[in-house]
């Protein structure tokens, strides 16, 4: 693996953000969307979860985005890729079938078939993403410079990207197989598409990221060039602990916790920080990929720290954690 500078995230056409549940995919998506928008890109941000959460990042009283979506900011359009609406859309627009299909789509039997049918949601959603990527304005320019997809979490996420391939295997002919091949071409194109794994510096998410990256390089064939390590501690703890050690334990303070209390707080942080740094190094080593840190931003006392303020940190250059030991963090722990 060469350690040359990576492309800017905003230079891709499609960034698919995934990771283990609870690692902060949506926050990463919103930071990237906001940063790209500020850089002057026309951004489309798409969520795939049935429960919307993106609007809440941008609005105090969030309104649903829906399938059509709306502009959350200048140059930032967001929508929810609802599979049922996407299917109706597909049948009507892509296949050019008429109004009658609406009735079919609403049939209870058809709904049941959909409920049980494998992979159709993923395929239809990916198809819609492909369609949005292709979308051009009257002058022929791309409507969106950058599409960001808040993909399902890994486990589900892997099936998500694998579906076009599976569909082509299962179907012998017909428009669906053909469309699946177009979708696959987009996903496999390293010039246009990047898979962006998000992890936290913890054991299981790191494990899952490793599996994700291995599969991305293997049967999924999706380009991946960096890992986002979310909720990285700032590393200030050790410094603070060192300062605390120079202060007598019986110093009386007015509002801060006592010196021994602060000591025990920082000791705890320091131990957790140690694990976090070891896990960050582990994920980089396992995947042979550089990492982009996303620090925790709880802020100071009474400081309002919105995610947007730090949006640009997602565009920071990916770095290689310096490895001076190959020790397994599991062993370092005790």
């Amino acid at each position, binding site marked *: 693996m060469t350690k040359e500078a990576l492309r800017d995230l905003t230079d891709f056409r499609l960034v698919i953000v995934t990771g283990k549940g*609870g*690692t902060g995919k949506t926050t990463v998506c919103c930071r990237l969307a906001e940063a790209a928008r500020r850089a002057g890109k026309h951004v489309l941000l798409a969520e795939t979860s049935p*429960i919307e959460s993106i609007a809440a990042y941008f609005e105090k009283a969030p309104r649903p985005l829906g399938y059509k979506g709306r502009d959350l900011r200048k140059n930032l359009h967001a929508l929810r890729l609802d599979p049922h609406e996407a299917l109706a859309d597909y*049948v009507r627009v892509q296949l050019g*079938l008429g109004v009658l299909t609406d009735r*079919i789509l609403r*049939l209870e*039997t*058809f709904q*049941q*078939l959909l*409920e*049980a049918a*494998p*992979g159709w949601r993923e395929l239809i959603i990916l198809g819609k993403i492909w369609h949005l990527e292709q979308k051009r304005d009257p002058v022929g320019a791309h409507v969106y410079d950058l599409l960001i997809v808040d993909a*399902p979490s890994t*486990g*589900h996420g892997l*099936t998500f990207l694998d*579906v076009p391939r*599976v*569909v082509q295997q*299962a*179907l*012998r*002919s*017909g*428009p669906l*197989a053909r469309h699946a091949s177009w979708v696959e071409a987009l996903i496999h194109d390293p010039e246009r598409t990047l898979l962006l794994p998000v992890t936290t510096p913890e*054991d*299981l*998410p790191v494990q899952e990221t490793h599996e994700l990256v291995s599969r991305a390089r293997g049967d999924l064939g999706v380009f991946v060039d960096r890992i986002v390590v979310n909720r990285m501690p700032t590393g200030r*703890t050790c*410094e*603070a602990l060192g*300062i*605390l050690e*120079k202060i*007598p334990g019986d*110093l009386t*303070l*007015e*509002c*801060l*916790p006592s010196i021994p209390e*602060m000591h*025990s*707080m*920082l000791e*705890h*942080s320091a*131990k957790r920080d140690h694990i976090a740094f070891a896990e960050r190094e582990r994920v980089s080593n396992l995947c042979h990929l550089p990492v982009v840190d996303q620090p925790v931003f*709880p*802020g*100071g*006392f*009474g*400081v309002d720290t919105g995610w947007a303020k730090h949006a640009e940190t997602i565009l920071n250059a990916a770095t290689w954690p310096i490895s001076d030991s190959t020790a397994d963090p*599991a062993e370092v*722990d005790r």
Partner: protein
Amino acid sequence: MTQLSLDASLRHARILVCAGTGGVGKTTIAAALSIQAALLGRRTLVLTIDPAKRLANALGLESLRAEPTAVDLSKLGIPDENSATPSLDAMMLDAKPTFDRLIERLTKNENELRRIFENRIYEQLSSALAGSREYAAMEQVHELVHSGLYDLIVLDTPPADHALDFLRAPRRLRDFLESRFVATLVRPAVSASRIGMRLFGRPLQRMLGLLERIAGVGFLDDLTEFLKAIDGLSTGFRERATRVEELLLGQDTGFVLISSASSGHQASTLEFMTELDRFEVPLVALVVNRLRPWPPNTPPFAIRERCHESVMLRDEERLREALLRGAGHHAEAESFDAEISALTQAIAEYTQICVGEQESVSILTKIAAQRRLHCHTVAELEADVAHLDGLFEIGATLRAKPHELAPSPIQ
């Protein structure tokens, strides 16, 4: 029953399901609870999905396998409460082979089996079918409950974006197999001739036409062939799906809802709870996992409140004087500015995290109380659980004391 409790469930339930959104530590809690149950003298099995290597190590196992493996609890050196040797098995759920095995079990002859496995649709159905993984998991639980080998099965649930995919799975599969669509395709007289389809009305006929237009020629044939092949099995399928559902939503099952302590997470936990309600799931306890320890006696929000600018300045002055005294007379007071700000920022960060977490806990505790449930908290450990005694401690805390409603700014 009065207030439901985790302790009672550990003693009497037959299945304990650990549910919650991704990344909250379901697997660890499941393992911790199973140790407690085993120590109570119940023959216990903990069934986990995709556990961390470290958790397997913590259970004293090299790796978790898809068959029950005994966990050696004697290392704990704790006399169990029922004086019998505690029995705990751990096992990993392996969904894909299970689904194959299920088909194998339900299939009567070799030919039929080959026909199913070789079908193009089957491959897709078993690996990608929404919920087939979950369905297979439920199947396995059913099998294990009826094996008579265990008094209690503690079940870790698959990560799911949508809270209860695994609960919905059996019902979904059953509905599909009972649907008119399937009935139409598998009746030989009907599917043999397209004319026969007219009998089933034009909408359905149109639907099949549409399917063929989208999916291409051959798709319906493949699908029909597959459905015919499993038609013989579907009665068995249906019955099992119903039984699995009854088992999971029955009286002998308890659900433990696990939430992360991090602020803002309570919203998704509440959503999850609403969804559990929709299934009338028997919830027995709420667990807030990995709460950051707060050493001071004064609650974090009170510290944050009183750290006003002017008071803070006086504290910073005191710290500066202390540092000056320590450094000797030639040090400049200003040279400590950076150090003091590093210290107060680190403390502010820590406090802020704890404020958020404790707000989250107090909201969840109140909601739990309304439903006569206990809310338990588990403190974040200094290191990830790597040993059996770590799991034991977590379990003991869970059994011992639910979280009491503490004064908080929310009230």
